[in-house]
């Protein structure tokens, strides 16, 4: 009897397993699997839809994109793919020079507010069915701004266009500043002579999409078309298996030189540790993290020869709440800035993965001033300045708001805490919050100081100085306000002489650094291990289309 019962029970378990398993596979089949598997019900056991490695293939580890809709991309992980698949009127080339892309040239009116783009003839969508016209651009930019598209970035990049804000708020049904003059001429009128406007058009929100396929999709629904988008970029999306891989193939009719020469680009989205995969020859390029950097930098390491570094356009900083004590006092802010030894931070703590920052602008950004004095490390001076401002006793409880997922605060913040303790005698507590909460507290001004980074969206100092430090900018979390700085920034917006304009930014930056609403800590460097078989790869300082310059000899 006992035995029979046991068999029954085990049989029951088996039955449950079969049911669950069967149910799941049915659900899987009916939902179309993870896409791409169009041969359901193949009769015989068939092996591996996994693509085979081909000559001229570049293999990369990539992030799982959150969206491939150019109108919606707010993160670099998505933009990385979008800039290769889609394209716009203008682009940055590998020297960060602004170049014509689908527009073959553009004219600017004398007053600097009207841009006339002449669209290259014969630029086709990937499916080869149709040429790109001015109307496609009007449609696409308007779609990025359309309130129904629900894009969080559309108006960030396009709100200089006359009528864009009203349209984005749903008050009008047309962006008056975007006009189709004829099939190949697009006229864009902006609200003031902002010379950085064209640079903002390199962002995906201004890219062209095929109006026949996007339908009524928004950033939050009906995005199925992005599985097989009809773009105009150097590469086509051949396959997107969510969480598994993305495969790009070259666009043979691409309109710029050099045309893509890679036979194929495979991004592994789920590969585990990229460095291990690289060492195991599963991918061709990988970044190196802080834990492995010393080993790779060692000249005797076999990987050392494959290692390169390049600056990236970003700045990491500590920001102060300039409206509340104790950091409403510039002296206190300066004292905190002087107490940090950025050299030690960069060299010892971050093992030269970064360069110490003196100012706001990162090296490589136009207007970057190598001679900027900044606020140099001075322990005694810091102490004296703090005494002068009322001493450590008058500060009250000082907390630093930091974002994180609950692990330790990390070596950088720990080192800074120690420096403040040692040089100022101030104990700073760290309040670590998950990113959503962190953003909310920044919004509400609910902080004394915080640490964060700012990464370039386009190559112009306006993207750092005006956006973060103008008193009326929504991105000025510090609530920093200096009328003199505001004046300089406003003047720089419309100054047509580039040299004068950069000079205005330099003056503004000097005052900003002086006022110390930020302690600029360091600028990042990107690094990569690149297999010898890969040629022409360069580490972009921020997201720009760069795969068409790359070839693989194997």
């Amino acid at each position, binding site marked *: 009897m006992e035995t029979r019962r046991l068999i029954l029970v085990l049989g029951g378990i088996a039955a449950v397993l079969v049911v669950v398993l069967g149910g799941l596979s049915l659900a899987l089949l009916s939902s179309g699997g993870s896409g791409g598997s169009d*041969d359901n019900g193949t009769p015989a056991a068939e092996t591996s839809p996994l693509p085979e490695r081909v000559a001229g293939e570049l293999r990369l580890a990539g992030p799982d994109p959150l969206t491939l809709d150019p109108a919606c991309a707010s993160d670099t992980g998505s933009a990385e793919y979008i800039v290769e698949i889609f394209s716009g009127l203008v682009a940055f080339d590998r020297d960060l020079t602004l170049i014509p892309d689908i527009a073959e040239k553009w004219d600017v009116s004398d007053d600097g507010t009207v841009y006339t783009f002449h669209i290259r003839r014969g630029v086709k969508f990937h499916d080869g069915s149709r040429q790109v016209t001015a109307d496609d651009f009007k449609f696409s930019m308007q779609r990025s701004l359309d309130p129904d598209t629900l894009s969080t970035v559309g108006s960030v990049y396009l709100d200089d266009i006359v009528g864009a804000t009203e349209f984005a708020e749903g008050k009008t049904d047309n962006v008056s500043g975007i006009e189709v003059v004829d099939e190949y001429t697009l006229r864009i009128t902006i609200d003031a002579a902002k010379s950085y406007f064209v640079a903002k058009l390199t962002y995906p929100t201004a890219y062209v999409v095929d109006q026949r396929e996007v339908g009524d999709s928004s950033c939050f629904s009906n995005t199925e078309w992005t599985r097989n988008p009809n773009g105009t970029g150097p590469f086509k999306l051949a396959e997107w298996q969510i*969480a598994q891989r993305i495969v790009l193939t070259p666009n043979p009719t691409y309109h710029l030189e050099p045309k893509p020469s890679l036979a194929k680009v495979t991004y592994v989205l789920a590969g585990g540790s990229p460095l291990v*995969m690289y060492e195991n020859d599963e991918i061709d390029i990988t970044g190196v993290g802080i834990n492995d950097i010393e080993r790779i930098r060692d000249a005797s390491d076999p990987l050392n020869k494959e290692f390169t570094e390049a600056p990236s356009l970003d700045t990491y900083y500590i920001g102060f709440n300039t409206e509340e004590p104790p950091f409403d006092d510039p002296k206190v802010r300066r004292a905190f800035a002087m107490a940090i030894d950025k050299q030690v931070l960069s060299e010892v703590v971050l093992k030269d993965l970064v360069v110490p920052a003196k100012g706001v602008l990162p090296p490589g950004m136009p207007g970057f001033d190598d001679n900027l004095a900044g606020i140099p490390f001075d322990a005694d001076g810091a102490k004296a300045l703090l005494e002068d401002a009322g001493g450590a006793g008058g500060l009250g409880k000082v907390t630093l708001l930091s974002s994180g997922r609950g692990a330790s605060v990390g070596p950088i913040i720990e080192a800074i805490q120690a420096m403040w303790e040692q040089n100022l005698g101030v104990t700073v507590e760290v309040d670590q919050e998950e990113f959503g909460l962190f953003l909310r507290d920044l919004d509400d001004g609910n902080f004394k100081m915080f640490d964060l980074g700012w990464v370039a969206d386009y190559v112009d100092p306006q993207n750092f100085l005006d956006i973060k430090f103008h008193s009326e900018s929504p991105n000025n979390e510090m609530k920093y306000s200096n009328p003199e700085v505001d004046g300089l920034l406003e003047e720089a917006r419309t100054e047509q002489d580039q040299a004068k304009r950069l000079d205005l930014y330099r003056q503004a930056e000097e005052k900003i650094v002086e006022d110390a609403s930020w302690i600029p800590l360091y600028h990042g460097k990107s690094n990569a291990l690149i297999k010898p078989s890969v040629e022409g790869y360069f580490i972009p300082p921020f997201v720009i289309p760069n795969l068409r310059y790359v070839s693989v000899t194997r």
Partner: protein
Amino acid sequence: MQGLASYIVRRLLWAPVILLAVSLATFALGRFGPGDPIQILQGQYRDPEQRERIAEELGYHDSFFTQYWRYMKGAVRGDFGEGLSPRGFPVNDVLFPRLWVTFQYNLLALIIIFAVGIPAGIWAALRHGTWMDPFTIGVMLFFTSVPVLVTIPVLQWLFALKLDVLPSGGWEVHEYYGVEIGVLSKRIILPLLVLTLPGFAGVARYMRAQVLEVLDQDYVRTARAKGLAEFTVVSRHIARNALLPLATMMGFALVGLLGGSIFLETLLGIPGVGEYAFNAVFARDYNAIMAIVLITSTAFIIANLVVDIMYAFIDPRIRLGAGMEG
């Protein structure tokens, strides 16, 4: 049998109540908790007016119960809405393949854990009193004590870099009759080691204890006295009887089949549900979180039901009890 049937029906009637409570709590945590997906998408480019506009459009401004009702109406029909990773794709399209992946490797690991743990436990028990018993269990306990965060890099280093016999991770599918199977590739070996090594000790120790108990029973002595071959004694009389309670343990293990390990999936690059759930929480992907919670709690309820029914089968004494819902 009638008692059992009514018991099952009673349990099944409870299931929707439990699911209602779970779904309400999860939904409320999402809606009333701080932060929302739009804020996170905006990141540092904050624009409160735009956020309000998008929130309105996505229905976040409707009353809690309106939103809950709207979601659950779809959910009971198996439509879990559209998710955020990737944005605007139906959660079903993204979640089900991931559940399938997690289910596959968990099931295989479970089978291996029992297939190795059971004989190991018997073996150890039969060598009770010699050094081999504590040694076997000790070795297994060692692997249980090492956290996966250590196991994974060590195994990667050993098998992928040093010996160069296995890929360092990843998930490779082969299609059989239209079903994508990922556990028939050598990429599964590392994850399986990571999953099974810490699991053996639990099963083996349990089995060992059961066998030790059975060993002293009269019928075992009788079997031996009858002159049966040792193998027959062990397989027929000892193992079978000791296995009985283990069946329930197996039932509980079923519960975990749909739960993915975030460490395992991230470090070894497996596109399973653990990684997805982890990121969904940080992105405030409400629809995805709800779908995961609803599906796993349904699985949990079913597995518990199976366990309870198994108890009833195994031990008639616990049948029909009135206080069994608890």
